[in-house]
């Protein structure tokens, strides 16, 4: 029997790094095959090779048993390979249908036949149970739906092998469940799937087999039915992984963040934060749980001075920072790990070193009298790269060429190292491997032990439950309840997040 995909002895080098070193990957027909490995292990690179975006330096690719040379994505498409990228590639101003047919438009008399396009998309979406509205503009639909559009795009092009590069990193738990159902249905229809994810839970729910790679090399390929999560995790990291738990005693100190009757408008001038009150103390981690779109983003942006406060006040360390300039607020003691790392957290075309001092470049010891002290900056960058295990050739490498997880580590290193009074961590471990998550959780707990205040926003209920001293549930722009993580569980949180108060209806 031949494999749907067989990649043999693939090698791919980038300046200063071997991203893939003799990797072999065999995907059987009709299976969901997991690709599992640390940040920077070379997963995306391997998939980009398969999709024709990179040329391998060595190695061969076989598609359905036939040797293939994949020079570009068009060739990959012709061979029936489709890819849903880590960062979506859709045109915001186009409708769902237009995005899907782009490049292969149905025509009538040489003219674009939009009605037919809509019909085709509808048929496809019904066939595979991918619920989308073909006439909506991409900018108006949720991330989960955008992802379904990406999947439909590959199906429309007739792909029977679909690559998913970390599809679940940007999804909410419910959307993840939906995606797993979709993938299983696709496999039933005869497709083969390669799934990259850092979440063991998903691998064990969805996949048949799993290939583990570490630092560009093959470790093993195992059947999911014959392994267990902790074995797989240690196989990936190369050592035993300890789950970090919040075992430091909860001894709240002075109030660091005080939010009083806060009202904030969103970009459409709708009041998204309504009379919100919240206090975070030194020496505590306060987790914010909530369904995406209930005002989490706007709340954080208001604290950071990135969004106008209409009413109410925000104090950090006793200082009123309401509607202050962001720099003032940072100097008052704010650290911020933003949700969108590529857009807000990094200057992608700056080197790793330059990114390490993005808020402090003008201060001693990094500068004096307006002149940068590049030696000091380099030294700091080297220290942080070492301490936070950022996988990069050196500090001069552009942030853009780092793997997704390592980009995240750069941000976390920068923010935690400043040890701010108040650290806001929005999805701090999104896209990180298990080892890195463990490490970053450890760092957040250290901040707590140092007596700093940590405001943690995450869609991962596990993460919230593990780390928080108190959990504030946000619903439609205000804090509907504050619960003790030791006395609650995912079910209760789920209900609260849906707007149902304890005891009441």
């Amino acid at each position, binding site marked *: 029997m031949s494999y749907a995909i067989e990649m043999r002895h693939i090698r791919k080098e980038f300046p200063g790094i071997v991203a893939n070193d003799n990797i072999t990957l065999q995907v059987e027909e009709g299976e969901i095959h997991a690709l599992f490995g640390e940040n920077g292990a070379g997963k995306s690179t391997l998939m980009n090779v398969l999709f024709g975006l990179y040329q391998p330096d060595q190695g061969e690719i076989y598609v359905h048993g036939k040797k293939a040379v994949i020079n570009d994505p068009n060739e990959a498409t012709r061979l029936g390979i489709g890819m849903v990228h880590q960062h979506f590639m859709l045109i915001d101003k186009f409708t769902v249908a237009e995005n899907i047919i782009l490049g292969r438009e149905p025509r009538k008399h040489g003219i674009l036949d939009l009605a037919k396009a809509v019909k085709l998309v509808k048929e496809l979406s019904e066939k595979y149970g991918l619920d989308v509205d073909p006439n909506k503009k991409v900018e108006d639909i949720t991330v989960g739906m955008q992802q379904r559009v990406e999947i439909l795009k590959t199906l429309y092009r007739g792909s029977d092998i679909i690559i998913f590069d970390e599809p679940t990193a940007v999804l909410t738990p419910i959307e993840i469940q939906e995606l797993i159902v979709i993938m299983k249905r696709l496999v039933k229809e005869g497709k083969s799937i390669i799934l990259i994810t850092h979440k063991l839970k998903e691998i064990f729910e969805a996949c048949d087999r799993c290939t583990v790679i570490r630092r560009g090399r093959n470790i093993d390929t195992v059947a999911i039915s014959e392994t267990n999560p902790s074995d797989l995790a240690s196989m990936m990291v190369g050592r035993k992984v300890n789950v970090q738990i919040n075992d430091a005693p909860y001894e709240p100190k002075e109030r660091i963040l005080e939010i009083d009757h806060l009202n904030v408008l969103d970009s459409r001038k709708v009041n998204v934060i309504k009379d919100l009150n919240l206090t975070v103390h030194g020496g505590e981690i306060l987790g914010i749980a909530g369904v995406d779109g209930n005002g989490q983003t706007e709340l954080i942006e208001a604290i950071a001075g990135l969004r106008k406060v209409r009413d109410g006040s925000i104090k950090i360390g006793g200082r009123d920072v309401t509607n202050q300039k962001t720099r003032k607020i940072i100097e008052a003691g704010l650290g911020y790990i933003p949700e969108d790392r590529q*857009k807000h957290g990094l200057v992608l075309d700056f080197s790793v070193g*330059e990114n390490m001092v993005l808020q402090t*470049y003008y201060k001693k010891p990094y500068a004096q009298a307006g002149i940068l002290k590049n030696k000091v900056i380099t030294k700091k960058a080297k220290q942080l790269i070492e301490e936070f295990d950022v996988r990069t050739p050196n500090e001069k490498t552009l942030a853009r060429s780092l793997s997704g997880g390592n980009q995240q580590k750069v941000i976390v290193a920068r923010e935690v190292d400043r040890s701010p009074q108040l650290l806001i961590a929005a999805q701090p471990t999104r896209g990180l491997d298990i080892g890195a998550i463990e490490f970053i959780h450890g760092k957040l707990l250290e901040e707590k032990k140092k007596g700093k205040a940590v405001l943690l926003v995450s869609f991962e209920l596990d993460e919230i439950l593990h780390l928080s001293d108190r959990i504030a549930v946000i619903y439609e722009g205000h804090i509907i309840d504050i619960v003790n993580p030791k006395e609650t569980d995912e079910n209760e949180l789920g209900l609260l997040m849906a707007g149902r108060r304890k005891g009441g209806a």
Partner: protein
Amino acid sequence: MKVNAFLKKINWMTLLIPVISVVLGLVCGAVIMFAIGYNPLLAYQSIIESIFLQPYYGGETIRAMIPLVLAGLAVAFAFRTGLFNIGVEGQLMVGWFASVACAIIFGHLPKFILLPMSVVAGGAAGALWGFIPGLLKARFKVHEVISTIMMNYIALYTTAYLIKNFLYTEGERTPTIPQAASLSSAFLANLTQGSRLHWGFVVAIIAVTAMWFMLWKTTKGYELRAVGFSPDASEYAGMNVGGNIILSLTISGIFAGLAGAMEGLGTYQYMTINSAFTGIGFNGIAVALLGLNTPVGVTLAGALFAGLQTGGMTMQSNAGVPVELIQIIIALIIFFVGSGYVIKWAADRLKRKGHKS
């Protein structure tokens, strides 16, 4: 070792585009000359010989380089901070006018005050002409390409109006500036057998160094580059995005204004009523492009264009080739740089082929 070799190869590739473009431009120019019956070798020989062996043309080349390099720096500086300054031409004109006007109005002052003051006046006028589009962009999101183009026309007609009404003299121009404001030098002229070479090259050298220093050694430069690459991330990091846009176009305008001042105080010693643009500002865009927006690259590209223009004048007498052909060659070089993307693509293709075989 292997890694280093690879890194070198990458740098080399980026350098390759401008170099290949220049070579291709010259080759195509030669083909054209040949096709219409001239001897391209003779023509190129006369360019090279004149610039390198005849002091007059050597001096004139450096003279022509001064405003070109400054205009190139203006474009490159803005570009490095994510902005496209098409307004160098206008900023140059107001700089030219301001330096000349200052020199004439304050003509009674001693040289050590008047000369620096006139140079500064040129830079300041350019700065103002850059500041306005910067402000428009920062405040009202007016795209700088559109506003700087409009500022070019405002500069063209405003300077003409001001000269006509306030500083007019025979010959449709301003009076000649007093010696006390002049950059020209008998010493340099003698050295180069009577070329118009002037002390402005010192200003150009300072400007080249200043751009490098500002962008890569100062905190402001760090900020300007950050905002240029990613306004969003810069805002999140607490930088003032709008302020940096204004600052960037203002500094860019200073370079352009200085380019004008060099013409006003150095080359010509007056300003004529222009009915059309000088073209130096637009050439600055090409110089920046060819110089990969680096200070050193801009200097080299400026030297090339200046050399071609100056040496080109000797082609006519020595090889009978019309001077206009130089403009064609320059245009070809710009064309090839612009299509550098295509060249890179072709190079990649070739490399791939090499791999397979």
